[in-house]
C-alpha cells in the first residue's frame, strides 16, 4: 500500500521541481513582453539566461559533493535534472544571441567567435556541453557503459570553468561577481577530484 503512494509523492515533487527550474525563463519572457527588462531588453534577456545557465551548472555540479558530504544519497536523482536545465538555459542563451541579438548575421557571429575571446570560450563551453546533454538518457548510459560515460562526462570539468571565464571576460571592469562564480565552480570540481583521490586510496 505504501509503495505507490510514495512514488506519487516523488512524481509530484519532480513536477514541482521542473516547474521551479522553468520559472526564471517564464519570468524573463513575461518581463520581456511587458517592458520590464528596461531599455535594452535583448541584452537583459541574454544576460538573464546566461546567469541562470551558470547557476544551474553550479547546482548540478554541487549535487555530488553535497550528497557525499551531507550523506544524502537520494539527491543523486536530481543531478541529471539540474544538468539538463543548465543545458536548456545555455541553449536559450545562445539562441537569444543568434536570433535576437545578431538576427542570424552569421558573418558577424563568426567574427565574434574568432575575434572576441569571451565569445570564443563561451561557444567552446556550449559545444562541450552538447555531447553531455545528448548522452544524458539512461539508454545512452547503458549503451556507452558506465565507465566510458563517466569519462565523457568529465568534459564538464572543462566546460564549467570556461563558462565562468566567458562571464569574467564579458564584464567590463567589475569582475567580482563572475570571479565568485569561477571560484565556486573550481571548488566544486576540486571536491570531485578529492573524492576520486579518496576512492583510489580506499581501493588500494
Amino acid at each position, binding site marked *: 500500500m505504501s509503495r505507490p503512494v510514495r512514488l506519487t509523492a516523488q512524481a509530484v515533487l519532480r513536477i514541482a521541481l521542473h516547474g521551479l527550474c522553468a520559472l526564471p525563463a517564464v519570468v524573463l519572457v513575461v518581463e*520581456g513582453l511587458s*517592458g520590464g527588462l528596461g531599455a535594452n531588453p*535583448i541584452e537583459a534577456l541574454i544576460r538573464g539566461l546566461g546567469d541562470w545557465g551558470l547557476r544551474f551548472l553550479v547546482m548540478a555540479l554541487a549535487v555530488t559533493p553535497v550528497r557525499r558530504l551531507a550523506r544524502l544519497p537520494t539527491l543523486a536523482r536530481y543531478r541529471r535534472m539540474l544538468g539538463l536545465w543548465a543545458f536548456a538555459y545555455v541553449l536559450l542563451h545562445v539562441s537569444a544571441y543568434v536570433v535576437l*541579438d545578431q538576427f542570424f548575421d552569421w558573418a*558577424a557571429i563568426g567574427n565574434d567567435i574568432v575575434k572576441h575571446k569571451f565569445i570564443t570560450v563561451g561557444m567552446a563551453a556550449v559545444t562541450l556541453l552538447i555531447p553531455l546533454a545528448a548522452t544524458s538518457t539512461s539508454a545512452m548510459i547503458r549503451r556507452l557503459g558506465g565507465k566510458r560515460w563517466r569519462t565523457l562526462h568529465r568534459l564538464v570539468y572543462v566546460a564549467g570553468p570556461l563558462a565562468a571565464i566567458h562571464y569574467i571576460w564579458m564584464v567590463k*571592469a567589475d569582475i567580482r561577481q563572475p570571479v565568485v562564480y569561477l571560484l565556486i565552480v573550481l571548488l566544486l570540481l576540486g571536491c570531485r577530484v578529492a573524492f576520486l583521490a579518496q576512492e583510489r586510496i580506499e581501493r588500494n
Partner: protein
Amino acid sequence: MLIGRPRDIPSSEITSRTAYLSRRQWLAGAGALVLAGGPAARARASGLGPIAKSTFSVDEKPTSLEDITHYNNFYEFGTDKDQPARNAPGLLKTRPWTVRVDGECHHPGTIDIDDLVRTSAWEERIYRHRCVEAWSMVIPWVGVPLAAVLSRFEPTGNAKFVAFETLSDDKQMPGERSLGMFPWPYREGLRIDEAMHPLALLAVGLYGDVLPAQNGAPIRLVVPWKYGFKGIKSIVAIRFVTEQPPTFWNMLAPGEYGFYSNVNPGVDHPRWTQAKERRIGEFLRRPTLPFNGYADQVANLYSGMDLKVYF
C-alpha cells in the same frame, strides 16, 4: 515581441521613491508630447531660459526620455545600467555647484552653475550617442558650445589639451565605495582643437529640462563623434594642460580604450565589434558610421593620423 515596449512608465517604484521626479515621469509618459509640446513652457519651468534650435541637430527620432534616463553608465552610482537612475537622484547634491577652471590660461577661475545657467545662450542639440558597448541613442541635449565657455578663460598657447574631472565624493557616490580599486575621480580629456570644435557641447539639460542626476547633472560634456564614455559627467574641474592627460578608462585598460576613442566601425574593441550598433528601441542592429556620422565636420581634425594606432 521584445522590442515593442509600451510608451508609458512600467515602473511605479521610481516615482514613489523620488516624488520630485514626478513631473519628469509625467513628461516621459506623455510620449510624443515631450517632443511636440511647448519647449518654451518647459524651458521657463526649468530656468534655462529660451532654448534655440540648432542646425547641428540630426533629423532622427530621439530615444524616449524613459530610456535615456534609465539606461546609464555612471559607475559612481553602480555598474548596472539601472542603478544610476535608482541611486543618483537621491544622493547627488547638484547645488551649490562650481567648476574650477585653471591651468594654461590667462584668467583661471570658477564657474558657478547658476551663473552659467543665467548667462548662457542655450541650444537644443539633438545628437547621436554611441556607446563603446555597441548600443546607441538619439538625445536632445540642452547645452552651450564648450568653446564658448573655455574662451572666457583665455587659454594660452601652451594649452594643448583640456582635462576634465568628475566630482569624487564617496559619501554621495556609493559606486566609489564599492569600486575602491578604481582610479577615482573619473577623468577625461580632449585635444584643444577637439575641445574648441563647434560640436563639442557642455550640456546642462535634456528634453528641454534640467539634466537628471543619472545623466551627469548639473553639467557634463557631450562629444558626439566619440564613444559615450568621453562625455564626462558631473564636472567639477577643467584644466588647460600641455600634455595629453590621463583618462579613466584608458588607465584601467589601455588596450581597450584609447585617448581619442573616436567612433570607428573599422577598429574593433576586444569585447565588442564596432561595425554595428543597437539603437535603443530598435530590433535590428544598424551599421555604425565613421565618427558616428559626424565625419564631414570632424574628420579633418585627424588628417594624417593613423586612427588604428590612435584609437
